[in-house]
């Protein structure tokens, strides 16, 4: 029974998402595209924090590195198809994941968290200073005129809002599938076990460091992919794409949705983007409000929307049992 409701729900969402651009205005299509890209980023963060229990607070660094790499290739290798630059950006995230992971994973808990921030700040500092490569605080632009070639189909301008929507949509669906698959593999399961009892995992004969490093590479890949997609979408890249405030935003989105749940980041991005959109239109102090909102969530609803929903459905089940006993 539950299974078919789930499947029906998923299909419904998919169909609605596919039909959305036919009924929605450009602005909302734009918004939803942004939401989807953030969902990809959020999913990669879920694998780190929700699934494996690794509290990274510098996750935006992979997002930014993916974005900058794609931007650089777009600018400097003009004959390269845009789709390929996307892949290269994603791959740069993978490399960054391995590199940073190899250094931060040897540290424990608090140190680990802080080291993730430190490395992301280091990269941010480099992005800021190295004007020759990254454009400094002006960032990089210049690919809005490019076209994205979809094999077997047409070429689409990067200014085509609807195209970007469907591009983001297909990549998001793809990401959800491979992340879901990842959690079902032995490696995914091992990482859950690490979250539950890392000491015992060690004594089962499993090399935890390698497992975590593989995770870092994978999440770096996904985050890098979302970053690359993002800069295609925004037509620019700047150092603030990988600063601590961006990392904080990732955390906020995850907490809103429920950071221990697979669906959390997706729901969280949706709520976050619309909240920011609404709040920023009525006040300049929206960042303050979001910050306070975040703190209240942590204090009173740390399990986020998914947590609230679970609580609610448990109460329903309990009540219905009482009635029919």
């Amino acid at each position, binding site marked *: 029974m539950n299974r078919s409701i789930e499947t029906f729900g998923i299909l419904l969402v998919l169909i609605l998402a596919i039909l959305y651009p036919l009924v929605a205005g450009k602005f909302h299509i734009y918004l939803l595209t942004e939401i989807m890209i953030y969902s990809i980023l959020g999913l990669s963060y879920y694998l780190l924090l929700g699934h494996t229990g690794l509290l990274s607070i510098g996750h935006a660094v992979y997002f930014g590195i993916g974005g900058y790499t794609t931007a650089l290739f777009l600018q400097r290798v003009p004959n390269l198809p845009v789709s390929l630059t996307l892949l290269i950006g994603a791959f740069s995230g993978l490399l960054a994941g391995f590199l940073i992971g190899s250094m931060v994973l040897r*540290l424990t808990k608090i140190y680990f968290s802080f080291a993730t921030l*430190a490395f992301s700040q280091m990269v941010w500092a480099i992005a800021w200073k190295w004007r020759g490569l990254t454009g400094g605080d002006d960032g990089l632009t210049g690919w809005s005129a490019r076209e994205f070639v979809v094999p077997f189909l047409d070429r689409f301008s990067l200014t085509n809002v609807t195209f970007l929507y469907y591009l983001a949509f297909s990549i998001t669906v793809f990401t959800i599938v491979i992340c879901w698959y990842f959690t079902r593999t032995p490696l995914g399961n091992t990482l859950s076990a690490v979250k539950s009892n890392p000491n015992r995992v060690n004594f089962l004969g499993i090399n935890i460091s390698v497992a975590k490093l593989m995770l870092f590479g994978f999440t770096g890949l996904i985050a890098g992919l979302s970053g690359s997609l993002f800069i295609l979408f925004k037509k620019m890249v700047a150092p603030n794409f990988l600063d601590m405030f961006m990392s*904080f935003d990732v955390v*906020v989105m995850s907490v809103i949705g429920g950071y221990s749940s697979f669906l959390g980041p997706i729901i969280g991005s949706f709520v976050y983007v619309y909240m920011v959109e609404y709040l920023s239109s009525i006040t300049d*102090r929206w*960042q303050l409000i979001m910050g306070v909102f975040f*703190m209240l969530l*942590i*204090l009173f609803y740390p399990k986020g929307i998914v947590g609230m929903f679970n609580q609610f459905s448990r109460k329903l089940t309990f009540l219905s049992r009482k009635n029919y006993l």
Partner: protein
Amino acid sequence: MESQLGMMIPVLFLHGLVYGMLIFLVASGLTLVMSMMDILNFAHASIYMIGAFICYQIIQWTNSFWIALVVAPLICGLLGILMERGLIRKVHASGHVNELLLTFGLAMVIMEVMKWIYGTNPLPVPVPPQLTQSVQLWSDVKYPVYRLFILVLSAVVLAFMFYLLKRTRLGISIRACVQDGEMAHALGTNVSIVFATVMGIGTWLAGIAGVIVAPYLSVYPGMFSDMILDCFAVIAVGGLGSLGGVLVASLIVGQVQSFGVIYLPSVSIILIYLVMVLVFIVKPRGLFGKKE
């Protein structure tokens, strides 16, 4: 040019000392709290920043740096205790992750509040009139008296801390709690009061740092982020829970920043991270970190 640089080295060294001591003032409180309570208080450096802003405000009202120097750190100490009692306790039960997230959020909120009240432009705070001159150190090297004042004040505070920790009962309790909180509790120490005290003292120190840095570096809402990273670098290099280690590391970091800005300007920003990376690789627990 050569001789000029040669002259500069002692000056740079003094700069490094000043900056190092400033970091130590903030980081010392943080490392004690971190190792005792096992939480990473992101907002610790925010209190440092609040200290600087309160200093600015008090000077606006009273025109007296000295009043600010006394009052602002006290307010900061109080804020620290409030923070610990009010927020951190509440979230302690829901786990480390939530604790860290909460303090992270708090730091962001505090920054936004400062932005709201004071805007994003750096606020100038004048050096107190008694300390505006420069002093002749040797040959033709002049050094601002104010910076020497910072050194002297930090040294006094340091001595006070040392006395507190090594010679008083409270100090012994603190050290016991740092070593092994459960054991200290079992032996009758009121751990909860010790926590609050350490928090209060730590933030009081951060407040002092905030006040004395205000004329030196200027006051703006982003200043906490530089400090928190320097603090972390210093704690990572020196070792969690080791005040001596943090002191040594602060002095090292201070010199690295000072000389780095002059000799390796383009790389100076990431110099400190490179030092950290080195330490991570060679001694993940810091130079003087606790074993096991």
